[in-house]
């Protein structure tokens, strides 16, 4: 790159193609397992290695996953879609064609609304611990802008195997365990105008496919990977610039780096008077650069045609309705409900719907504690619980504090049996496995809040008598002295006194 790119002049256009590996037991066209991590080629059946004479048969569950996705994004589930062969030679593609869908995909259209803004895109991601995300979000009180991203289509296809380029006497090793793994390729319109939008979309999509249970989203294992089509054009120009496709982005960070690099590179090329030529490029995380793939140079004529071994995939409206009835509530609907019924803020609702597990935890807590305590429940789930989970690197499913236990704490806060401070102590105790619920810990440790008016009055009298100096300072106008008096009262009761009552009574006595 020779010159410093002048970003202000250029509009960025990005479209994403995402490959989501579907959560099935077996492959899309064979009865092989898709479990990750098997010995090389141990999960490559006759069909997967394309022995002469073998034939594909479609896995029902892969179709179910596609239908769920179509419903989740408001797309059209095609009543008839067609499997086609995409022909090209590559050693990890055993038939030398990939079975995919071309002219008639299983899902057409649909869209995703994603939040874009400083830190806001991480709302729907689980990459960051929730309590940290919450902190970021609290710093952005204005709701981040929402971006409507249209989907072109989603189609079913099979994955290829893996080429291992480590040295086998100068040769490449081929492992076909992954060949035939079911994928849903989800294609957007070129609707994104910045890296941030692209990453926000990818994160929202990642959350959605996990939410509806069609993909485990494990990016390290390649279960969710994106190709980004990137081009730039001068602002105001109607037609798109020539695009380059960045292949196989398997982390959000790499996606951010790769697209940023690619944009800068393209702008610099154009500003230096060179033309962009259409190309497929790879991102190298070590250098932070993208480079052209030699292997894709002549692969542009795929000779798609309907696969004669597979008949048209017909999906009846009844089947779609049946699957629709089993669909979980989608995050956006759930957020709206949390705002309306639980009176949560939009950002609380978004936080709590980061994953189906988290949302279920929260909902179960509210169910036990009562809807009136929803806000307290939300604060605890997003605060203490989330922090503790991330500290201990524990999954919410393994949380030692169950929704039932957390609800027992919330109830005691609400009825003023305990203060927030004591509540945290109880949460700690439950986390350590001490006690079955809040009440057992309260009783065992004697943590019940002192709310008896007589007892508090006696306590306040005692504190006033013993701290004449503070009383005088307060009367002289030092507000800080008041806090010291409250502190003394709390200390004397080991935090069990109802702080509100103590404060009220102290003010009353001092102003008398």
């Amino acid at each position, binding site marked *: 790159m020779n010159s410093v790119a002048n970003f202000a002049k250029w509009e960025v256009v990005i479209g994403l193609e995402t490959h989501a590996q579907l959560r099935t037991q077996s492959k899309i066209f064979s009865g092989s397992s898709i479990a990750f991590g098997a010995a090389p080629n141990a999960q490559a059946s006759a069909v997967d290695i394309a022995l*002469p*004479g073998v034939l594909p048969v479609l896995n029902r569950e892969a179709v179910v996953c596609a239908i769920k996705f179509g419903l989740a994004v408001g797309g059209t589930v095609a009543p008839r879609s067609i499997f086609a062969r995409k022909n090209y030679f590559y050693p990890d593609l055993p038939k030398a064609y990939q079975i995919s869908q071309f002219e008639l995909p299983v899902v057409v259209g649909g869209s995703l609304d994603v939040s874009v803004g400083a830190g806001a895109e991480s709302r729907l991601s689980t990459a960051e611990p929730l309590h940290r995300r919450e902190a970021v979000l609290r710093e952005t009180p204005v709701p981040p802008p929402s971006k409507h991203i249209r989907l072109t289509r989603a189609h079913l296809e099979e994955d290829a195997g893996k080429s291992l380029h480590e040295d086998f006497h100068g040769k490449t090793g081929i492992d076909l365990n992954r060949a035939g793994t079911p994928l849903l390729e989800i294609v957007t319109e070129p609707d994104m105008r910045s890296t941030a939008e692209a990453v926000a979309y990818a994160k929202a999509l990642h959350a959605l496919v996990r939410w509806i249970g069609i993909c485990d989203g494990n990016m390290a294992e390649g279960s969710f990977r994106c190709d980004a089509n990137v081009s730039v054009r001068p602002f105001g120009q109607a037609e798109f610039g020539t695009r380059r496709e960045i292949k196989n982005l398997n982390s959000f960070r790499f996606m951010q780096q790769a697209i940023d690099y690619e944009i800068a590179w393209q702008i610099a090329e154009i500003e230096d008077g060179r033309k962009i030529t259409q190309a497929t490029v790879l991102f190298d995380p070590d250098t932070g650069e993208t480079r052209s793939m030699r292997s894709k140079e002549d692969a542009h004529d795929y000779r798609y045609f309907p696969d004669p071994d597979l008949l048209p995939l017909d999906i009846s409206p009844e089947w779609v309705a049946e699957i629709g009835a089993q669909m979980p509530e989608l995050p956006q609907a759930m957020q709206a409900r949390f705002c309306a019924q639980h009176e949560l803020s939009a950002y609380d609702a978004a936080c709590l719907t980061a994953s189906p597990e988290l949302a279920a935890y929260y909902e179960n807590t509210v169910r036990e504690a009562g809807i009136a305590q929803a806000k307290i429940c939300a604060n605890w789930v997003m605060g203490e619980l989330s922090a503790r989970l991330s500290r201990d690197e524990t999954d919410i499913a393994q949380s030692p504090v169950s929704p039932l236990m957390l609800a027992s704490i919330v109830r005691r806060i609400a009825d003023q049996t305990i203060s927030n401070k004591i509540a945290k102590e109880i949460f700690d105790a439950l986390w350590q496995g001490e006690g079955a619920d809040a009440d057992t810990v309260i009783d065992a440790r004697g943590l019940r809040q002192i709310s008896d008016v007589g007892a508090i009055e006696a306590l306040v009298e005692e504190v006033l008598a013993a701290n004449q100096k503070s009383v005088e300072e307060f009367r002289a106008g030092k507000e800080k002295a008041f806090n010291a008096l409250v502190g003394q009262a709390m200390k004397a009761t080991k935090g069990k006194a109802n702080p509100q009552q103590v404060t009220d009574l102290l003010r009353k006595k001092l102003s008398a």
Partner: protein
Amino acid sequence: MKQMHTASLAELSAALHAKQFSAVELAQFFLSRTEKFDGDLNAFISTDADKTLAMARAADERIARGEAGALTGIPVAYKDLFCVDGWRATCGSRILENFVAPYDAHVVAQLNAAGMVTLGKLNMDEFAMGSSNENSYYGAVKNPWDLSRVPGGSSGGTAAVVAARLAPVALGTDTGGSIRQPAAFCGLTGLKPTYGRVSRYGMVAYASSLDQASPMAKSAEDCALLLTAMTGFDARDSTSLQRETEDFSARLNEPLKGLRIGLPREYFADGLDDDVRLAIESALTELRALGAITVEVTLPNAALSLPAYYVIAPAEASSNLSRFDGVRYGYRAPEYKDLNDMYAKTRAQGFGEEVKRRILMGTYVLSHGYYDAFYLKAQKIRRLIANDFRAAFEQCDVIVGPTTPTVAFPLGDKTDDPVQMYLADIYTISSNLAGLPAMSIPCGVGQHDMPVGLQIIGPWFSESKMLNVAHQYQQASDWHTRLPEMAR
């Protein structure tokens, strides 16, 4: 009973059950005939007497246990594109010269389960591409009726072994006429079932939407017996049809009175040799004598079936044969510069001329800019052809005509002009495009005393009716019992 080599399957089965001879003796008989005559015919690519006799012994034990069926102990040979576990499946190609199939085709598994004894694997046009069996890496197959003539193709070995009585029955495939045309050239009864009747699993694909495994037999009666064992649903083939199992022998003896035979005007037009026409016409006379009535029908798009086929079949083949890349099995060129050079040299050395030609044709018609003009166009014409048949079957129960325009031609006669070779399938291809069942039965002799085949095409799933027609004709005629010199 008759001699082993001329006996029907039913007679062989009865003799096995009556212990007139054992399955081992029967297998040895055919193996020794093969040893004696196959040097001239070149019909087998692989034989393995040990394996064959082991299967025969198992069949004998089964018979002894009283667990035998109608085909137990009957020898069978397979066109070399059926995968038989532990046997080579070369497809007549150098590229699969060393390919030992690690699994059984569905149809092979069915016949194994029935207790049939594998005699060997049969020569064929490479990857089933050809009409004379001259496109084989393993050399041309000769017609048992005249060793200077072709047996037809692509199931040339399949026809030659049954005609020469080196096997009582054999399996071939039919993509554009590959069972019927050799059946006609060799005086046999061969039947291509309705597409989807027989599982394609384990049958190396040429053109997937057209291929069907097909029985080759001495008579309609034998054909029916074998077909019954071959058919049936297979979950591993998405195009396999879920239908009640059918006994194709059940209706053989129904009278033909009132049968409406459609004669397509287009099948009796120019291009049909007079000797063939004459034999067909005398067969029609016989069928009328059996009570059938003939009506003229029309298949207006018949002339387009050949060009449509030569777009669709090569297109599918170009993709089907891409898996032969020297990576996981089969031939790999000994010397190459890099990966792409390895692919290109492996395939250039591994495939023969006709196969390469069709791969190039198929690649071209699917490539960018030509797809609509050729591939899509051919698929539309395919529907027109199917519609023509649908309309014709409103007026008749079966369609009858010649299987081929000529009798078997001399070796080398058409090898220089692919188009002339393609024309040998002019009457057979349209039923593959439509997915219809069709068969050929011997109905006379033409020039040079060579057999002539009568083609019977029926509506979808009408195999029983077609076999009934064929069987009734064979009850009234003896063309199917004529033997070439080496089998007398």
